[in-house]
């Protein structure tokens, strides 16, 4: 197990290097740093001096890969690639355009993101699996057909509709919860309810249908027939056998997103004014703050790889045949 983990983490390094090189070439090779500065300062009538000053302030005045003006190791370390990309491995993301430290900002914003994403994830999972199990229980009846039709309908509605409609009905018409905002602690619950509800609604259609497919595939197997043949009730078959054996495909899709919960949701957070990482990203995109976007891309892929490792570990918990 330990050996496996070490191996997995070593595997992750080339992938992260790949991500790093990709973002580096995306951000610095496609466009020159001059273009970036001009974009920030307004497109027209920018003096070369202003561009130089901006580049110097933000540390973009170095050469890209190789600095021939310096001596020794500094030839490599005093470059944009080293300063901006390699340092991300130490989780040193530099500072955003308004001069704040990105790493500290990320730390502060993780908690609000998690406060929304974690309840959405847990409540959602419970509801989707219950719904899917019910459809499996009533499979090939009118109820099942209705359930699937409802799922298809729900998944055809844009996520934006759930947010705009939910905010309008629940907050504006009924005045149940505030339209947007965030507070930490117990006060925050009223702010969290609606985003969680909408987050769950947003993928109830596609997720329930997906789980139903998994359950149905499992329910068609021979051991299920055996279980029924020895006289188990349909409910026991479903919970004791089908659900247990469907855990592997379920975990494959579910565990990998757990670390990504830290990243929050772009849409929900920006609509509900939650000061999390999602709205941070959106603000950065709108302000064209490349440093923040680059940091989020890197963080996202680190968390994704962590999710893959977690998935493998979770297999050993539900399936005794899997040994790492």
């Amino acid at each position, binding site marked *: 197990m330990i050996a496996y983990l070490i191996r997995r983490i070593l595997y992750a390094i*080339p*992938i992260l290097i*790949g*991500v790093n090189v*990709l*973002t580096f070439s*995306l*951000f610095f090779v*496609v*466009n020159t740093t001059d*273009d*970036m500065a*001009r*974009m920030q300062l307004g*497109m027209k009538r920018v003096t070369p001096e202003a561009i130089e000053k901006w580049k110097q302030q933000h540390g973009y005045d170095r050469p890209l890969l190789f600095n021939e003006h310096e001596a020794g190791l500094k030839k490599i370390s005093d470059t944009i690639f080293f300063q901006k990309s390699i340092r991300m491995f130490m989780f040193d993301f530099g500072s955003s355009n308004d001069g704040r430290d990105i790493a500290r900002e990320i730390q502060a914003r993780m908690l609000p993101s998690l406060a929304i994403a974690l309840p959405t994830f847990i409540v959602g999972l419970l509801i989707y699996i219950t719904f899917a199990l019910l459809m499996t229980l009533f499979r090939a009846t009118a109820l099942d057909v209705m359930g699937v039709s409802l799922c*298809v*309908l729900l*998944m*055809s*509605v*844009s*996520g*934006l*509709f759930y947010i*705009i409609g939910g905010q*309008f009905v629940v907050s*504006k018409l009924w005045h149940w919860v505030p339209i947007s905002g965030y507070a930490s602690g117990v006060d925050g619950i009223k702010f969290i309810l609606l985003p969680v509800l909408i987050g769950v609604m947003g993928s109830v259609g596609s997720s329930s249908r997906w789980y139903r497919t998994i359950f149905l595939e499992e329910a068609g197997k021979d051991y299920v027939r055996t279980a029924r043949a020895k006289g188990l009730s349909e409910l026991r078959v479903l919970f004791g056998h089908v659900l247990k054996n469907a855990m592997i495909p379920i975990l494959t899709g579910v565990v990998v997103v757990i670390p*990504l919960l830290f*990243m929050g949701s*772009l*849409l929900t957070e*920006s609509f509900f004014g939650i000061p999390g990482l999602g709205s941070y*990203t*959106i603000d950065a*995109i*709108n302000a*064209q703050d*490349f440093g923040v*976007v*680059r940091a*989020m*891309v890197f963080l*996202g*892929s680190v968390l*994704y*790889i962590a999710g893959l490792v977690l998935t493998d570990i979770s297999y050993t918990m539900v399936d005794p045949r899997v040994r790492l």
Partner: protein
Amino acid sequence: MNGMPIILWTDAMIYLLLAVVAVATLWIRKRPYLLLPWQRVMKSSVGMVSLLLLSLFVLVGLLDTVHYRAALPEKSNGQTVYSPEVLSLLDVLAKDIKSRNEKTYSAPLAAHLYAKESVEMPNGGVGRDYPRLKYGGAHLANPQQELFNDVLSRALSGAMAGVLIATLLAASWIALLYALRRLSVDRASSMSSPPVTGRQSFRALLITTVLLGMLFGMVSNLATAYHVLGTDKVGQDVLYLALKSIRTGLVIGTVTTLVMLPFALFFGIAAGYLRGWVDDVIQYIYTVLSSIPSVLLIAATVLIMQVYIEAHPEWFSTSAERADLRLLFLCLILGVTSWTGLCRLLRGETLKLRELEYIQAAQAFGVSSARILTRHIMPNVMHIVLIAMVMDFSGLVLAEAVLSYVGVGVDPTTMSFGTLINSARMEMGREPMVWWTLAAAFGFMLVLVLTANLFADAIRDAFDPRLNRT
């Protein structure tokens, strides 16, 4: 009217896509074993009805794809000058609703503006009242009393005309099918007879045609005198905006797949069949790409493209060309991010196929790798490609709206469901609220995505060999 035809980049992609579809149709028609799953699709009522609706959307999209620049009346030095505005056939057909701009918001089928303004009173003074619309219901002398009856009578007469036309169409269609069948029976060649839709799906198709005829008759008759879906902030007809948005949605949904397909197919099959270091490299590439959350990758790339396009204004002679290039870039980027899923699926399937007896037999006969890949493996993974294509479509249409909201979608001047929603987002907070723009955008999107989902299901049911049919 003279004009200079223009082929934008996405237009070219759409024409290419049409050509691919046409070639594929010809290819499939001659091969009964390929025709079989399509005949299963034709037997499904849901599949055929959704196909009919989708083809209407495609028709609107295609009309909106044929672009040209109109010639201006004055000439300079004997040379014709073309207007900087790029128009499409749809603009010509919908010229009336396009040009009839009001001052600002007006509700669907209204005769008055939505907000009160200072107007001259009949007695000479100035008071606050809802001013009349310039075009909507302008023929009515006294809208308060006549509006309802006028709308009702126009809707009814339009619906009746629509039903009549639809019935005639359906009747001629049946006659044609019947004649074709007679012809093929005469030739006594059962193989080349046209594929017959199932009795049930045929009935469903007829009913849908008549209902659609009713709807179109109603809307088009009303549209001659009213704004059927109201007008937006600057007085543009919302129905026109929604119709223009269809093309963007279709382009995002189809061109993206067209762009990524060659990569996914080539790399997926190569990785699965050749294994070894090729497999390692390809797996490395798609792990790197898929490890970046797709929204972030798209956001980063679109931001970069924005800077790139801004830095090269000299490439574009019209703003439509710039917006179009951005749309194409968006498709490319979406293609890059959605490429990995299909690639992984194809790799897995190829790994499975290459161990089967018929491939081993081919290898034993000394058939070259390239030939095995193209003749034996590729045809047997095509159903996965097709299913993935139709399944991805609806997701991409939905993604466009979200991305445009986030600010990394299409160009703000491109009409799309995303930009429509984005511009109308704050209108729900107005008092009284303006709901029609959002309702139109979400409504059109729902119909498009729902029919695409239903069609995708029908395709999957017909093509997936894992579903046992008896």
